[in-house]
């Protein structure tokens, strides 16, 4: 058993995390206009992520640029949806309003919730996640496809970086290009990465076929997951939380 696999034995069953991530991200989509409820949901999500053992420092390193982008999107959203008390106005244009800030914050929290939900899976080995998917009756091929997709993400990022480097080494100074040429440059970058991904996928498929993937209809697993009493308690907790949130949303109970 790999170290990560051994560590995951002490973690909640991945099916518990599937349920948790599903509930959190579903409510992130459903909640509209209630900032305090969204903050509460985010707090629950962060608490769960901490308990599961998400490495936030590593997450920050990996997603720093994306988070900066999300912050910019939220600020833009806030600027373009002004409402309520005006906090800053320039040349008759409402730049900052209380309502705009609330909308921007909602967008940021919603995206943050998706990221936190996804981050919980990083604590598990791919093998355990696939096993979890298979044991919730997802077809093995589909579960395996998801895991392969995840594995290819860093490779794609590396290829994109290499392609950008190679392109610049042809004497193209990107900063000097006009917008139209810059846009055409990005099409040159994306195309080889897509082709390379398809070629990688084809080679992987061939290699899997050569190792008799799907030769037998039913697969057996040496490593099988079983729900511990603590997992069942957590599942019950998630169910109770879902009902509570559902009641708040449907009945409109203003607890905040």
């Amino acid at each position: 058993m790999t170290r990560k696999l051994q560590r995951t034995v002490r973690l909640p069953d991945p099916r518990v995390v599937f349920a948790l991530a599903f509930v959190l991200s579903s409510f992130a989509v459903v909640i509209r206009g209630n900032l305090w409820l969204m903050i509460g949901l985010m707090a629950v999500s962060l608490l769960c992520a901490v308990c599961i053992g998400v490495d936030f420092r590593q997450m920050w390193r990996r997603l720093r640029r994306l988070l900066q982008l999300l912050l910019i999107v939220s600020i833009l959203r806030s600027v373009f949806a002004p409402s309520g008390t005006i906090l800053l106005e320039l040349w008759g244009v409402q730049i900052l309003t209380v309502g705009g800030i609330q909308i921007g914050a909602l967008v940021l929290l919603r995206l943050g919730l998706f990221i936190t939900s996804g981050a919980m899976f990083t604590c598990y080995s791919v093998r355990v996640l696939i096993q979890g998917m298979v044991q919730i009756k997802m077809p093995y091929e589909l579960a395996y496809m998801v895991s392969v997709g995840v594995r290819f993400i860093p490779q794609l990022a590396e290829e994109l970086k290499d392609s950008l480097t190679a392109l610049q080494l042809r004497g193209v100074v990107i900063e000097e290009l006009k917008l139209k040429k810059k846009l055409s440059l990005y099409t040159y970058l994306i195309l080889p990465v897509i082709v390379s991904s398809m070629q990688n996928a084809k080679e992987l498929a061939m290699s899997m076929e050569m190792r008799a993937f799907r030769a037998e209809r039913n697969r057996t697993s040496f490593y099988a997951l079983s729900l511990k009493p603590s997992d069942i308690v957590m599942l019950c907790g998630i169910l109770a939380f879902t009902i509570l949130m559902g009641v708040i949303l449907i009945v409109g109970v203003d607890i905040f």
Partner: protein
Amino acid sequence: MDERFTLELRDISFSYPARERRQNFSLAVKHFVPSGQCTAIMGENGSGKTTLGKLAAGLLRPDAGCVLYDGEDIAGWKLGQIGRQVGYLFQEPSRQLFTPRPLEELSFAQKLRGVPQDEAEDKATELLRQFELEHIKDNTTYTLSRGEKQRLAIAAAMVAQPRFFVLDEPTTGLDKRRRGILAETLHSLMSKNVGILLISHDCAFVDEMQADIRIMDGGGLVDA
């Protein structure tokens, strides 16, 4: 080509960031100036040949020390500026091919740099002829054989007319006749004062290039 280009690596040390796979590797080179028109770096796998080549081409930035082109430190240079002086051929040619057609591959970077279309295509056609790729000029780039991709990548590196080339395993996938053609092309470039840093395991090709050989081991030049 006018004056001879000088490349110099001074007091270089480099190690890969912790997140990368080769975190146990470190390179230290006190002083390296490719002597003669063609210098070959040879050594075992993992000895640091490619890392040295990438440092020389400005693809990697040293932790300490400096890389000088014609006596000027390139620390603040953009990759595009470096590419106008030094051409680099990657070990894996697919990573430096961008377009669906070979003819476009050799002309698009010129067009981006503002070269008129006719001029860019003439130059591209000439390079395709030189590397015996004319017959596949309208084929799909991605389905070419490894050898064809390698030749196309070398031709593409030559488009910007750099004054120095770093070629990482340029003979991989080339048959004997095409290795000969490559050697001829490189000799013709050398006659125009273009310098070459050749990273290779191919002793016969290194001999053919009459290169000055330097040996790398454990991240350093052993003959320094």
